[in-house]
């Protein structure tokens, strides 16, 4: 169906204008969200408690942790620390009927920032079909390495978090991890719908 645009003219039913001109809006992640998440989950202690456990057991513990961290992240991101970026992502998704990638991407980013604010990561693909996340420095992986746990069980943490977020965003995702730390220099997650 045609959008009904006439050259140069606004499309009245689609036009979005400033709601409160001059009012500063919070677009970035709130430090409070990081404070609340790190206060609830002590990653250092959790990893230390994994000492002596095998990879499988560590995976299971981290998987459960990933679910819990993502649940709290989403609760805070959509409640106490709701920001304007999040509001606009939701609004645009309703207008266009397109949820992926940004409704999910938003939770994934805050999931990383919330518990691991000093990690190094980037989004290298963000289309309506695929989201690619690269993590080049991960504090969880480093902590596991330091206590001698091999095999990257922390992938359970990330995967579980992504799937919990996708459940909320309503995206039927498939996730692959073609590159892993430390061997490939980065963990790379390919999330497709």
């Amino acid at each position: 169906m045609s959008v009904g645009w006439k050259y140069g003219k606004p499309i009245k039913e689609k036009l979005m204008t400033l709601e409160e001109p001059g009012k500063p809006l919070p677009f970035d992640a709130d430090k409070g969200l990081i404070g609340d998440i790190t206060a609830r989950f002590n990653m250092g202690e959790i990893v230390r408690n994994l000492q002596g456990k095998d990879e499988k057991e560590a995976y299971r513990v981290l998987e459960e942790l990933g679910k819990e961290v993502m649940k709290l992240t989403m609760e805070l991101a959509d409640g106490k620390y709701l920001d304007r970026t999040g509001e606009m992502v939701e609004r645009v998704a309703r207008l266009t009927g397109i949820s992926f990638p940004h409704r999910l991407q938003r939770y994934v980013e805050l999931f990383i920032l919330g518990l691991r604010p000093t990690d190094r990561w980037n989004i290298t693909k963000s289309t309506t079909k695929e989201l690619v996340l690269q993590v080049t420095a991960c504090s969880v992986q480093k902590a596991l390495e330091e206590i001698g746990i091999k095999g990257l069980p922390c992938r359970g943490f990330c995967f579980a978090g992504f799937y919990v977020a996708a459940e909320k965003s309503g995206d039927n995702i498939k996730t692959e991890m073609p590159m892993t730390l430390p061997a490939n220099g980065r963990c790379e997650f390919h999330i497709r719908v």
Partner: protein
Amino acid sequence: MCVWCERYADGYERWYFNPANYARKLYKVRKEEAEALGAEANPQAAGGMALLTRDFLEAVDRKDYEVVAKMRQQVEEIAWATHFGQVVPLDDVLRVVDIIYPIALITCACRRSMLGLPNEENFTCIGMGPGMYKWERWPDTYRGGVHFLTPDEAKEIITKMNKRGLVQVLFTFGTPYIAGICNCDYPDCSAIRTTLDHGIQFLWKGHHVAVIDNELCNGCASCIHRCQFKALSFSPTQNKAYIDLFQCFGCGLCISECPQDAITLVERAKFPALANVW
């Protein structure tokens, strides 16, 4: 292959087909203090054509070619790092629409300043990518508001603008991040003006050139008015349209106007003399 493909295509056919050049984080951690200039500033307002000052024009007037060359180089270096455009034919733009999201119809900053067009007559520009979620951060740039579009709606609007005679240009906002599909014409577009009138390369030529088949051209000259780059002219001697290939930006606008289908887009690289003319 242009220098941007060499640097940023990463295996894709062209740099602007590489989805990495449209991807960006949604978040960083909020700072307590006011946002500083630089990466956080509005690149459209901070860079680009605003770099061309009166000093440059005065140096041109007094024929101080040394100063002109120096200033031109300085301006181009900043523009290429922050905010410049490359002409892209319609088919390529429609492919790009499938790898970008979100997409928004917004007012054109050039037509606002060059023509003084009011917002309600000026919705001719497309902004795209995660930055669009933060459009309220730069109310001066997004005067008049925004419309978020589906990819199909965006394709319909861009095709309409192309049919009307506007050239599609992809613009960077912190190279190689591409966040704008401008729909340009001369003299409204400040990038075309500074490129053609002042020889400062804010606008890069596309990967094609338009070539006329003289056997098919009937000399109707209906294509001539479509060219925004002064590359097309009419040869009374030959009674044919003539394209200066060194001046052609490869937008393809002339093709859609030719009733004889006498014009085609050919890869720039197929002409050794043009391979490095950007």
